């Protein structure tokens, strides 16, 4: 285990070390201490390494991540995992707003709650929240899965495309063109896998699926006269 003191050595030195790790690195376990809510911790990683941040992080931790597993032993600031491509981010506490915004792949797990706009414009990432998510979550979600074991705030999935949403608790309101959908066997199977990977013992059968009603983003010939 390599331990890096962020308070002492700073963000640039941390990234020089983490970005120097290659596909075949032997230094696969990293620990960042003294994060103190710093911005942009462990961004742009591209190696099969595991980084554990001991404490809470500020804006954009794990942004653009590829391959790496990032554990946040605390709460995460706004925009965590933004534009992540692959790999994993596990947050022990809560996540602030726009978690996993525009993320293309990988898995983000929140053990606590996530704030507003969780998974906004998600493009293939899977997000599993053990608690609740705030308003406007998965706004314009295009692809991927958002799993909420608690409740969802107002306007879930507003103007969504083909992202899927699974909520176990209450949904305060659905956004424009988002609707409740049937849970078919393939969805139960998918959800089972995601919950297992996220270390969550919720039963897939207790969830409701939501997704796009496909009225907003598909061209309707009856509206041709409007153009």
């Amino acid at each position: 285990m390599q331990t890096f003191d962020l308070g002492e050595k700073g963000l640039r030195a941390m990234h020089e070390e983490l970005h120097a790790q290659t596909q075949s690195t032997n230094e696969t376990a990293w620990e960042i201490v003294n994060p103190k809510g710093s911005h942009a911790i462990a961004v742009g990683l591209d190696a099969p390494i595991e980084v554990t941040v001991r404490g809470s992080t500020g804006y954009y931790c794990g942004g653009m991540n590829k391959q790496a597993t990032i554990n946040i032993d605390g709460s995460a600031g706004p925009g965590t995992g933004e534009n992540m491509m692959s790999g994993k981010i596990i947050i022990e506490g809560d996540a602030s707003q726009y978690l996993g915004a525009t993320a293309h792949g990988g898995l983000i797990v929140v053990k606590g709650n996530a704030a507003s706009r969780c998974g906004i414009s998600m493009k293939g990432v899977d997000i599993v929240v053990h608690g609740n998510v705030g308003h406007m979550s998965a706004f314009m979600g295009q692809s991927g899965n958002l799993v909420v074991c608690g409740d969802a705030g107002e306007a879930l999935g507003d103007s969504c495309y083909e992202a899927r949403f699974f909520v176990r608790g209450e949904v305060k309101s659905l956004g424009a063109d988002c609707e409740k959908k049937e849970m078919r066997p393939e969805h139960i199977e998918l959800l089972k896998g995601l919950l297992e990977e996220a270390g969550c013992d919720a039963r897939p059968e207790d969830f409701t699926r939501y997704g796009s009603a496909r009225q907003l983003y598909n061209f309707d010939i009856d509206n041709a006269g409007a153009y």
Partner: protein
Amino acid sequence: MQEARAALKEMRPETRVMSAGEAIEIYKEVGLPGDVAERFDIPQLTGSHGIGHTRMATESAVTTLGAHPFSTGADQCLVHNGSLSNHNSLRRTLAREGVMTETENDTEVAAAYLTWKMQNGHSLGEALEAGIDDLDGFYTFVVGTKDGFGVVRDPIACKPAVMAETDQYVAFGSEYRALVSLPGIEAARVWEPEPATVYFWKH
């Protein structure tokens, strides 16, 4: 109070009154935060509550008058993160009601709006609730009162806000980074205020 203000205006027209009351003092200036804090000897101040604010100017120029907080009445003040889009029309409405503003600043209009609401019988909490309907734009507001402070975010809540609570204190910041040097922060309850909800803490 009105007479004192009028007399000051006549005798010392260059004087600007930043605050009035018995408990809350407002200091503001242009410059590096460290320099401003030193000039007013902020580290020597004592009290039960306080708030610091640095401004990234959008709606009006970088001037001392445009700096926050703005007084909303005796022992009250307002700081704002965000931007209001209907401040010009609201400024005209308030002027017709006899509530005048001194600058082009949007937050000053919000402060004047709260003052006006309270002159018409609203409590501060009610004035903030009414603001959710009447103030168009995005904001996280913090109001200082004689014995505490309040927080409200607009219904969309783009502008960040973080609270930390322990048995010893309640703290507010725009982000967790601002709170990390507080004693016992690791064990504090850290949470984000809900949109369109008015919170108050007092001694």
